[in-house]
């Protein structure tokens, strides 16, 4: 057979493409349930972390997430964890960062007196600068912070502020614009949670 002829070239190209795509479809299909489970576990881990529940391992995460109730109010989905008092509510958010969207979860107490925690799920801020919003020290600033005048102020320059009663967190040095965007995200999300819960900020 002439391997340089047009019919052979077309036939070969068609067959080889079909064969490789068939293998890929098979690989995708067999791993799809696992990929979906990973995605769900990551989402649950973020919500639990914002709610202040530390977990490790997929089984423990799924077990702990059974205590969380998903509720919808005013078209907004919230995740409620009973704490024996006002309850703690988490809301997933997508806000505008400097280079792209910032996705995360913000959790607050039911009376909106305090934040409970923050988790960043995805972001494309500058690595080492704005990207530091994913670091523990930044997120820990939102752990049980008092909400003052309906907002959380991101103060620049950072002063190593450890006061949990002043409604203020430190901005990231060298990432003023990302810090400002985070301030806007907090304000918008607190307003949305307040409207969903029917609570005055």
């Amino acid at each position, binding site marked *: 057979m002439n*391997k340089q002829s047009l019919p052979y*070239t077309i036939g*070969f190209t068609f067959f080889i493409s079909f064969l490789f795509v068939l293998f890929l479809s098979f690989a995708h299909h067999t*791993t799809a349930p*696992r990929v979906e489970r990973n995605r769900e576990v*990551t989402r649950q881990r973020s919500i639990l972390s914002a709610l202040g529940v530390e977990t490790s391992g997929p089984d423990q995460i799924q077990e702990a997430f059974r205590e969380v109730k998903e509720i919808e109010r005013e078209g907004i989905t919230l995740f409620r964890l009973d704490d024996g008092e006002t309850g703690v509510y988490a809301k997933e958010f997508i806000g505008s960062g400097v280079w792209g969207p910032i996705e995360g979860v913000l959790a607050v107490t039911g009376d909106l007196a305090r934040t409970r925690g923050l988790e960043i799920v995805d972001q494309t801020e*500058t690595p*080492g600068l704005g990207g530091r919003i994913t670091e523990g020290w930044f997120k820990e600033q939102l752990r049980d912070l008092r909400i003052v005048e309906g907002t959380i102020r991101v103060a620049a320059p950072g002063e190593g502020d450890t006061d949990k009663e002043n409604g203020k967190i430190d901005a990231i040095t060298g990432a003023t614009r990302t810090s400002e965007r985070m301030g806007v995200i907090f304000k918008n999300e607190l307003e949305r949670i307040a409207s969903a819960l029917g609570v005055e900020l």
Partner: protein
Amino acid sequence: MSSPKEIMRENLWTNNPIFMQILGICSALAVTNLMINTLIMTLGVVFVTAMSNLTVSLMKSLIPRKVRMIVQTLIIAFYVIIVDILLRAYLPDISRALGPYVGLIITNCIIMGRAEAFAQSNPPVLSLWDGVTSGMGYMGVLMTIAFVRELLGFGTVLGFPVLPSGFEPWIIMVTPPSAFFLLGIIIWIGKTIMNKEGATA
């Protein structure tokens, strides 16, 4: 025909894809700020280069000349997508950290270069070995850059803190320009040593 030992020496040193052929530079700048990400990504490149070389070599007598390069691209893309599927299913955190860079392995010139320059005219086992060693030559340089960037940018090696707590991270080391400078320094050192070897030989 070169012996396996000669092929290894060429790919790791005298004809290293990065500092002799200046190929694969884009990923050398983009994914070298954390060693673990660099390790996984370069292992992916070793796997793709080796398997695409093997496949191209096995099929070389069947591939029509006119569609030779598009078929090579198809083979490379197939193995890259396999790597992507496996990472998403079994190493989801690393898959998320690497983001689009796994898919971009397809555009790494080293892989296409070896398929075209070696696998197209050599037997399968030798082509597989050429792919493995080419990938390792690339891995060696990227891991060196990643080691310096992670050490000075974060004070860690493979995520473990190794520098004293008072160490002030170098912000430039976590941004791509530092990789550009480091790569220049590595090329300079490599060529200087090679020139000296040449002079004494």
